[in-house]
Structures are given as C-alpha cells and as structure tokens.
C-alpha cells in the first residue's frame, strides 16, 4: 500500500509502525469547574518536566501552551461555559481553533490544527488518562498530528521516521521533527487507519509504503544483523551470501552482508536522478555497510522496463544508456565516484553483450571495480573475453533464460530449468575463473535453483533478504558427494523434466 505526502525531511528509512492515536471521545465525563486552576498548573508542571534540560527553543514551544492556559482571557472564557471543565475547555479551544482557521492564513491554520491535539491531550490529563508514550525504538511513528509534548517524546525516543496526516507545515510538532532531522512526511491522508493493518512502513522522500511482509525475516531471525555471510555445508564448503536490494534503507538491517545487487531503477522511477541526490544515497549506503561491498547496478532502463516518461526504445540496460541517454549514464557514474569515499563501491553493468560496452564505461571511471551482468547468451558465450576488462561477474538467470529460449518468461512453456540454461551457466562460470562469479538472478533464491548452482561450484549467491534463512537452512545440509551427483545429473540431462526430478529428489532427502 503506497501513499503520497509532503516531505518535510527527505530521507529513506523503514521500521515497525508505531501508531500514536488520539482520543476524541470525552462524552459523559464531568469535572467541576472549581478545579480549573489546579488542573492548569498541574499540566504546566507536567509539560515543563518534559522540556527540562532541552534546547531553549523547545522550552519556548511549551511556553506557548502554558501561557495560553494561564492567560486571563482563556480562564474567564472557560469559566463562562458552564460547570463542567471538560466540556468548557473543549468549547473554548474548539472556538479558538475555528477562529484561527477562518483567518485563512497558513500559520494560523497550523496553530489551529495543533490546538485540537493539544485539547485532547489536556483533556486526557484532566481525566488522569494521559498516555505516557513508551515509543518503540527504531520504529516509524504514524499519527494524525502530535502535541508538543508528544513530539518531544518522539525525538527523545530514537525513532527512524514520522508519518503525519496533518498539513500543518509550521506547527510546533512538525518543526521539532524537522529540527531534529528525522525523516518526516506530512499530509499523508488517512495514514493512521491504514497503518493499523500493516506492520512496517518504508519511508521514501514523498512516499510511504505500508507492508506486512518485507521485513518479516527481521522478526524470525533477530540475529540477522550479526549473522555471518559465509555459510558452510556439512563438510565445510563455504558459500558466500550477498544481498539483492531495491530500497536503499534495506542496508539498515543487514550490516554483515555485501550488497551483491542494488537495483537503481527504483531511484529512477521515483525521480531521484540528480547527481547530488544519487550521491547522497550511495554514500549513505556505502557508509552503512562498510567495510562490506556495495554493488551498484547502473540503471537498467529501456524496452519493457521503460518508465512512461521515456521514449520507447528497442534496447535496454547499458545499450540504452550508451546510445540513448548518455547524460543519465554520466550523471550516475559521477554520483558513484563522489560517493565512493570509503572505496567499497563496485559498478555492475546490465545487459552487456559486447566488450566495447565495458570499454566505454571503463573510460568514464578508472578506479572503481567494474563487473558485468551475464544475462545475454552473447556475454555468457564470451565470458573469457571479458575477463581482461572486468573485476567480477554476476549472472542474471531470468533474462538469460528468456533470451536463450526465445520466449517470454511469463509464458506457460517457459522452462527455467531447461538444460541449455545450465550449460550456459556452467560454461560462463568455468570460463570466468579466477574472477569472482556470483549469481544474482531468481534461480539463486529458489530451493532447487540454489542447489543446482552450488553443485556447479558456484560459491557466491546474491539473494533477497527474505530468502536468507531458507538459503542457510539448505546450504548447511549439503555435502560434496550429493553435490557431485546433482551436477553430473544436470549436465547429462536431455530435458528439463529430468533436472527437476533430480533436484526435487535431493531436496526431499536433505
């Protein structure tokens, strides 16, 4: 579920949703008006406690409310509205809020919105039901709007981001979040109700995505942050796991893994194409995972991946960049160069089919490792020729299969495990030595495919975060003897059927 909003502090982040909801039901509660002054001074102390030791600026924000409550005209207005404090305060603040709204001025609108939340908080205080707000660390808070007290709690709680429904750009709570540099989106309509159905939120500049799945692994294996990226089979063969990611913020949870594939199309589709924006993102990712490696794949645009804003072209990947959008290529490479302060970034070139394409990219960047996606039959067949020009290889199984079989991968007769695919993979891998060779395609993140690839001797696989636990489970059960039997069967097979039968058999008995 994706929603748009107005970014106050731009950024990428994700985390568990933490909803701060407001109580708006105060019917049937009565508190005598005689207690008004005592309640005001009680709330004042409460608010002052919250700003204790904080920046002078924030104390001033709190004083606005304190002075408002203590102002003689406020007290006399409340007293003139009957005998029940709850009702009287409600009426006075609503009236004030509406008056401000009618002034049709942005700043008064902001205060007007803020006042409503302040009212609810003050009424909660009066009823002794104020929520002490134990905000979960590393969460993303979702609220209609906050009060000054709540936003101070929020900024003290080490949260990752904030999603607000309010449009009150200049309200105190929004200013506090902004001042603290917390990634914040406002004006996200109906966010609180929607967030109730989801577990996580991903913040991306002006967009929020709510999801329940993306990070489930974090819960299943809480140790993922500390997990080793090198997994051993039963008899000690080492397989290295790298990660495929789409969202920059995914690096937050996986500091021990190399990023084997960062698909930058996602940035493109979100309009993040300027040099400085790209640089900030790459730099942030590189710093987060250092000393692990960040493999940035150049924009793979064109053909079926063409975003509507681009002219339709018959080529894709590096061909598109070189021949149709040189400027985009130059900008991306400059951004990568600027971001590579820690020297842990590599560049991966998509849809390569000839040496010349690599040479052209090499001309643009001298001191960064370059690798190619082996995803066209042409590049698989001349893998050895590329060795002189690249530092690593990464094989993409989806495109390689569909271009080899000359059939769309959504077609019913598409055979992911066709013997020809395995011959090409095996051939390319054996010709790539001694350069690092990984498989980042879908085959590596399917149980059968993973077993087949490891049986060929491939020792680096790049997979999505969601598949890590399962991959480890499988790798740890394998051994040399089983792997040899599997590879022999695959290489000698005539049909896909035989390969599938063999792989399924071994998967069952693992």
């Amino acid at each position: 579920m994706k929603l748009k909003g107005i970014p106050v502090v731009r950024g990428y982040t994700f985390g568990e949703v933490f909803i701060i909801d407001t109580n708006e039901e105060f019917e049937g509660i009565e508190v005598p008006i005689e207690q008004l002054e005592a309640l005001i001074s009680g709330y004042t102390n409460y608010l002052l406690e919250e700003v204790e030791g904080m920046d002078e600026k924030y104390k001033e924000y709190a004083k606005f409310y304190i002075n408002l409550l203590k102002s003689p005209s406020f007290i006399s207005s409340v007293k003139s509205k009957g005998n029940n404090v709850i009702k009287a305060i409600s009426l006075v603040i609503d009236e004030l809020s509406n008056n401000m709204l009618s002034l049709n001025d942005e700043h008064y609108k902001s205060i007007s919105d803020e006042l409503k939340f302040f009212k609810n908080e003050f009424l909660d205080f009066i009823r002794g039901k104020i929520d002490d707000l134990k905000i979960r660390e590393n969460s993303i808070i979702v609220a209609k709007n906050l009060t000054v007290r709540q936003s101070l709690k929020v900024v003290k709680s080490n949260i990752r981001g904030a999603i607000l429904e309010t449009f009150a750009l200049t309200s105190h709570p929004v200013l506090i979040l902004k001042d603290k540099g917390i990634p914040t989106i406002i004006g996200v309509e109906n966010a609180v109700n929607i967030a109730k159905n989801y577990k996580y939120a991903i913040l991306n500049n002006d967009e929020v995505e709510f999801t329940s799945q993306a990070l489930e692994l974090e819960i299943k294996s809480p140790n993922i942050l500390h997990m080793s990226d090198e997994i051993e089979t039963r008899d000690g063969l080492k397989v290295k796991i790298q990660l495929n990611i789409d969202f920059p913020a995914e690096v937050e949870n996986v500091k021990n893994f190399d990023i084997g594939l960062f698909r930058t199309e996602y940035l493109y589709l979100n309009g993040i194409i300027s040099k400085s924006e790209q640089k900030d993102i790459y730099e942030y990712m590189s710093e987060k995972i250092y000393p692990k490696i960040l493999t940035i794949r150049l924009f793979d645009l064109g053909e079926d991946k063409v975003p509507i804003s681009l002219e339709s072209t018959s080529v894709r990947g590096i061909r598109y960049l070189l021949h149709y959008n040189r400027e985009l290529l130059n900008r991306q490479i400059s951004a990568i160069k600027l971001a590579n302060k820690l020297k842990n970034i590599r560049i991966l070139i998509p849809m390569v089919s000839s040496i010349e394409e690599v040479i052209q990219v090499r001309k643009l960047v001298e001191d960064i490792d370059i690798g190619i996606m082996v995803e066209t039959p042409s590049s698989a067949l001349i893998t050895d020729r590329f060795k002189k020009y690249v530092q690593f290889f990464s094989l993409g199984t989806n495109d390689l299969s569909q271009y080899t079989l000359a059939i769309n991968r959504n077609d019913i007769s598409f055979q992911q495990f066709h013997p020809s695919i395995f011959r090409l993979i095996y051939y390319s891998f054996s010709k790539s030595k001694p350069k690092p060779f990984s498989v980042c395609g879908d085959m590596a993140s399917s149980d059968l495919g993973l077993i087949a690839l490891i049986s060929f001797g491939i020792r680096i696989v790049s997979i999505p975060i969601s598949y890590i636990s399962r991959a480890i489970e499988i790798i740890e059960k394998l051994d040399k003897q089983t792997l040899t039997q599997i590879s022999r069967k695959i290489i000698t097979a005539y049909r896909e059927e035989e390969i599938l039968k063999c792989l399924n058999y071994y998967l069952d008995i693992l």
Partner: protein
Amino acid sequence: MYFKKVVIVNKLGIHARPATKISEIANKFVSEIYIEKDGMIANAKSILGILMLVASKGTELMIRAEGPDEIEAVESIAKIIEEGFGEEI
C-alpha cells in the same frame, strides 16, 4: 500612561512564537499593558489576546502601559517587535 507606535517587520507577523515572547516580557512588569490594532485591544500579558489581533507584517500597533514601570514595559515590547523577534524579516 506611556505609549508608543510600532510597525511589525518580521515576515510571518505575530504568530505563535512572537506572541509567546511578547506575553513573556509583559508578565515581567507590574503595569497594565495593552496592545491595540485598529480599535481592537489585547492584554499584552495574555497570549490568546495577542494572537487574536492577527497582526501581519506591516501592521501598525499601539503599545500602551500604565503603572510604575510603564516606560520600561512599553520600550521592551516595542524593541522586540521592531527587531522582528529575531526572525526572518
């Protein structure tokens, strides 16, 4: 009685923060202090009153005080308004 005319110079006019500052200063004095705009009168010690004057940039205000520290009171409030509350002009 002492009074002085001032013009609001800061870009955003008297919104929440300036109103807080004015009432903070006003409350330090014993004199009665009022701010007037086009016939509307607000008690300078009441943030609510100040806010409801809705005084934007360029608005002329009259600050009036009566009491033992009236001169100092008016001058202090006039000064902070003329300085634009330390905000963007």
